[in-house]
């Protein structure tokens, strides 16, 4: 575990939420809180830096490596800084049948970035993800906790327009 300067800390509200989460598992099983806490951390900092992961490790009294191995396994966790809005675009078959690839090309062109990249103004990061369980409403992408479904070029224009304001 990193023993250096570590100034990261949850906001009081998130700290209370974290303690509530940790308390819901049986005694000695606090590691179960790891994924929920990483989500909470990502909500606060936008991504999971080593310092943030070390902070979560200390909170659960586990080794830092136990946090790193989990954070690197699950695709929802960002291990590098991301833009203000992370667009997670479904690239799986059923969405593609509904024109998902064409809309995706349009989105990339509109933002001027490819998968894994962030716009120069720091507003948008684009990520390709697998099936989001909304196949009947494809094409689909997710921005933070919100699903955007039945995407068309026009919808993309509207959503990006709103978020750029």
């Amino acid at each position, binding site marked *: 575990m990193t023993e250096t300067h570590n100034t990261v800390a949850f906001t009081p509200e998130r700290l209370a939420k974290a303690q509530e989460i940790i308390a*819901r*598992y*049986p005694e000695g*099983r606090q*590691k*179960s*809180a*790891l*994924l*929920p806490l*990483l*989500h909470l951390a990502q909500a606060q900092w936008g991504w999971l830096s080593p310092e943030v992961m070390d902070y979560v490790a200390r909170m*659960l009294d*586990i080794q830092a490596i*136990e946090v790193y*191995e*989990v954070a690197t*396994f*699950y*695709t*929802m*966790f960002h291990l590098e800084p991301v833009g203000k809005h992370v667009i*997670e675009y479904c*690239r*799986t*078959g*059923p969405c*593609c*049948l*509904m024109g998902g690839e064409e809309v995706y090309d349009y989105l990339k062109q509109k933002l001027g970035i490819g998968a894994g990249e962030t716009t120069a103004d720091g507003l948008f990061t684009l990520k390709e*993800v*697998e*099936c*989001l*369980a*909304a*196949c*009947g*409403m*494809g094409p689909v992408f*997710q921005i933070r*906790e*919100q*699903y955007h479904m039945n995407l068309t070029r026009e919808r993309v224009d509207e959503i990006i327009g709103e978020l750029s304001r």
Partner: protein
Amino acid sequence: MSKKILLEHIDVPGIDTYDVYRKQGGYTAVEKALKTMTPEAVVEEVKKSGVRGRGGAGFPMGMKWSFLAKPEGVPRYLVCNADESEPGTFKDHYLMKNIPHLLIEGMIISSFALGANKSFIYVRGELMYVIYILEKAIAEAKAAGFLGKNILGTGYDLELVVQPGGGAYICGEETALLESLEGKRGNPRNKPPFPAVKGLYQSPTVVNNVESIATTAWIVNNGGDAYAAIGVGRSTGTKLISASGHIKKPGVYEIELGLPVEEFLYSDEWCGGIRDGHHLKAVVAGGSSVPILPANLILKLANGEPRMMSYESLSDGGFQTGTMLGSGGFIVFDETSCIVRNTWNFSRFYHHESCGQCSPCREGTGWMEKVLHRIEYGHGSMHDIDLLVDVAKKIEGNTICPLGDAAAWPVASAIRHFREEFEWHITNPQEATRPGAVYKGDMALV
């Protein structure tokens, strides 16, 4: 044929709230089970119902429950698998979002039947907004006295915890899900020991799908025999089908098992037929993992009889001419679809989602993706088709969990039924790689 068990009240305004759900008869099954039945009696009704696991495997739920070990002084757990991630499947998402209390009611009944005092609902992390809906429903149920200590004065205690995943298809496999719930990477466990003996925290555990657990409210209210009277043969009850692709009415439908595929696909009550001006080319009937079937074989069995939406009828003919009901993810392809491109897409999915623990899956899924990519992009050779079949065979059955099989079957079945289309891509690379180009050779469109 439109018997509704789960979605009966789906259109009632406010059905996502406790008050409305309760007014529609909600939580009467909890009252009946906790006040008038023993846990064993509830298990017996679920056994009699014949309901089979709705997540994809189709294993009889009552039998799974009866395997649960009950050593003295050791807690037992119920874990609801709400990690719905199988491409083409979005029924649990729909159910939890619209009628969260049906799942909560099912969780209380099932936990009581299994003797669990703390139960978990593991929801894929992308559905954070659904997690908030479930947490609200839990708070409402608790305020109404259906959760917490001494429920309805019966002395039974239950606490429900909603747990987010982190974006990993593999965690839909029950032992990977348990690992994840323990705060670890989602690597499936070797079995035995099965979760029924050593599951969550090494304690006896049952893992059931959302839809399976939700059926228990109706079963308790109406009896296992009444449930078993619905459906056909060993495919009892109803099933939620997620319909997507080139149909007029994509969405989630509750069907009585035994409904003819043709009726499901073409009736206005369900999919409404293929989108205007197009023809049916193929269907993946049970989520991306099950074998793809061409139009003629999805509508009819090899002997010409109509195929039905049931476990047995969909698997009739084995993998030569049949498929599986799976999770009920019904993906429809019209003649504009490229089977090679879709197969490559699915292979990329499995390669991306392989946990990497077993080499046949870790390496094999990568090779299948690569070889399919080069065929799709005009660099394939005829030898590649046999290579794909060979790699698929070497993955199948050689891995700890079924993800390996799930990756192999779509590739093997696409080649089995659409080999000419793969060959066309290889012999006509220039034509096949033109934007929008699709194989138009000899095949059975409907």
